[in-house]
């Protein structure tokens, strides 16, 4: 039986090992043309010697120098040619160009490859910083919250207007006119006026800036459904609301507190004042700063509460201005009729102004105690923050 099994050699007859027709030299490429030397089949030693000889470099001139190294092989080829083989067969090569696919339609994805990502995700604070940065950087650069151009322009205008007292002080110092210096210099009245004067800062600039900022702060997340992007990620509602609050507060602080600090610092520098001046006026500045902080906090909480109950940016903006100016107007009219200042407790601005007067040690323009205004202010903030948290809790992930 074993004899019947054909061996491997039996499967390939000797004839198969030979080409059916001899290959003509014309058909072979130039590099593959057979050498002229004829070697006998049985002369293996001479064949190996020939192969070894062909593997050697052609000639090594002893006095040659290549790239600063003596004795290097000089082939006569350029560096690029040696490195990349350019020039070898270039004259006979045919360029391979992309073929036009007749059946390809516009927009077809040819190589859709899902690439995994195994990076590290950062902690809660980095995520919160992302929210904060998104809102604040949006005022200066693209790629963050798209603030309307009008908001940016108004904010810039108000910022310039808010440092008007510093500019006046500088003009007074530069011209040497004492009247201007006295008028714009640091005093209880001027510090109070920078933060809490009704005309024109709290009648025009601060409420308008606040209205523009808070307008779409939360309501647009509700309208666009972007709340789903936040809450389907590891961001809790407390952090979301806190970062929104902080974003508005920081922008308002730049307008109110930064300009107040610039005014006070400018007065020291422009007047060339010393430490005694700082000792005298430092507490006044801190009082004004605290009153300004209270103003920023109150405007932010009321504004965000209004933004959270709406799904557009028009209503919160108008409602905020209406609330600040409207309550002031109503209180003024009722006070004029009944001559009782307690009605001013309904106005957030007047409560702030009253507490501010108390903080700065100014004569009170209201008859009721400042503690009433403080309690009302705390109540207003508490109610606003409650509305804000309740409405943020109602923001949906799956459907709005």
């Amino acid at each position, binding site marked *: 039986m074993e004899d019947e099994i054909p061996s491997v050699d039996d499967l390939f007859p000797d004839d198969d090992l030979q080409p059916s027709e001899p290959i003509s030299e014309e058909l072979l490429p130039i590099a593959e043309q057979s050498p002229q030397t004829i070697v006998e089949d049985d002369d293996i030693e001479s064949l190996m010697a020939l192969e070894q000889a062909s593997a050697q470099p052609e000639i090594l001139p002893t006095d040659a120098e290549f790239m600063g190294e003596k004795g290097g092989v000089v082939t006569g080829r350029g560096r690029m040619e040696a490195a990349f083989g350019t020039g070898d067969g270039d004259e006979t090569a045919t360029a391979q160009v992309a073929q036009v696919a007749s059946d390809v339609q516009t927009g077809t994805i040819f190589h859709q490859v899902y690439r995994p990502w195994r990076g590290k*995700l950062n902690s809660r604070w980095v995520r919160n910083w992302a929210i904060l940065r998104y809102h604040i950087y949006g005022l200066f650069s693209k790629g963050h919250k798209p603030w309307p151009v009008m908001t940016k322009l108004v904010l810039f205008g108000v910022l310039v207007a808010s440092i008007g007292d510093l500019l006046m002080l500088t003009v007074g110092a530069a011209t040497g006119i004492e009247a201007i210096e006295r008028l714009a210099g640091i005093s209880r009245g001027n510090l109070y006026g920078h933060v809490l004067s009704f005309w024109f800062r709290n009648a025009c600039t601060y409420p308008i800036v606040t209205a523009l900022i808070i307008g779409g702060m939360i309501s647009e997340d509700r309208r*666009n459904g972007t709340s789903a992007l936040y809450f389907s990620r590891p*961001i*809790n509602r407390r952090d979301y609301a806190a970062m929104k609050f902080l974003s508005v507060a920081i922008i308002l602080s730049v307008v109110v507190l930064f300009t107040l600090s610039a005014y006070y610092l400018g007065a020291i520098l422009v007047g060339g004042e010393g430490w005694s001046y700082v000792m005298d006026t430092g507490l006044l500045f801190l009082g004004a700063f605290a009153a300004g902080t209270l103003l920023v906090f109150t405007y932010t909480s009321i504004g965000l509460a209004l933004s959270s109950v709406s799904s557009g940016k028009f209503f919160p903006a108008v409602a905020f201005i209406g609330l600040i100016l409207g309550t002031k107007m109503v209180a003024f009219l009722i006070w004029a009729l009944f001559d009782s200042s307690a009605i001013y407790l309904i106005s957030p601005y007047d409560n702030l102004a009253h507490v501010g007067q108390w903080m700065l040690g100014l004569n009170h323009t209201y008859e009721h105690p400042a503690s009433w205004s403080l309690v009302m202010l705390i109540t207003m903030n508490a109610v606003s923050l409650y509305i804000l948290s309740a409405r943020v809790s109602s923001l949906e992930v799956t459907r709005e």
Partner: protein
Amino acid sequence: MQTIIATENLTKMYGPHVALDEMSLKISSGATALLGPNGAGKSTMIKTLLGLIQLTSGEGEVLGYNIRTEGDNIRQRIGYMPEYDCLTPEMNAIHQVKYCGELTGMNTNIAMQRAHEVLEYVGLRDQRYREISTFSTGMMQATKLACAIIHDPELLICDEPTNGLDTKARGFMLDTLFQVVKQGDRSILMCSHLMDDVEKICDRIVMIHKGKLIAQGKIEDLKAIDREIEIWVWGGASRMEDAMIDAGLKPRRTGRVMRVVRQDETTYDLVLELAAKAKVQIRRMEDYEPSLEDLFLVIMERLGYGVKSSADLLKSQPPTTAIAPLPSQPGGNF
């Protein structure tokens, strides 16, 4: 196969209303569809899986994390693609996707790099610097998908991913999702009312109704619940139908084509006998290969709903018809 979602007697009540009723689920990695009519509890289920709501009772784990206490960890590993618009219209796609990455905890530079990658993957490479407000519905859906996969989540929850898409865009979206599973080795939980879409992507389904689990398992296994024989009759379809009803076969007839439940091997012989008695020709008789749509309708019919297609049932809450539920109506899993 790894279990990615496991719940035990999950109950969620909103006042007296029961949104989830003792739901016990076990979902393995891969592609799974979450089906059910409007108001069935799908949205509550998704919110539960995302760890966003406090449960009334029961326990559950997603990707090994407790849904009661480890919501943050779950949401870091899940990508969620909502059904409704969730993009800022005034932003560019690239910045929107990058912001989503940052919200998940990615560094800014890495998020930007990854945003380029995923937008290319979803087919928006050349449109990534365009404002989203100028996008078509398909492009918006693709952007939402890019937002969901920027951090390469282990589980992707897609709520109606082909909503509002034309045939071509729908096909592309399904292919893209399919590749996330096959190429990316990721899991998908997909809510859709288009059974064709579900069948294309998913190999398993979870069906819920009125907060209760109706069916879960492999689609192929579930299709075997009620195997039917399809019969093409010629020359007296009504007579044949009457004969079948008399024999207790409960045929479903559309013109000359009828389907009867295959009870056992003898059903074929019985049909032939009935045809001979009714003097009708049977031109074709074969085992019917049910689609997911058929499966869905069979299940809903058992629950007492007379509907003609899944679209009727899923778009609005249907009225219960006079069809009585079968005595063997399952309370939980098939």
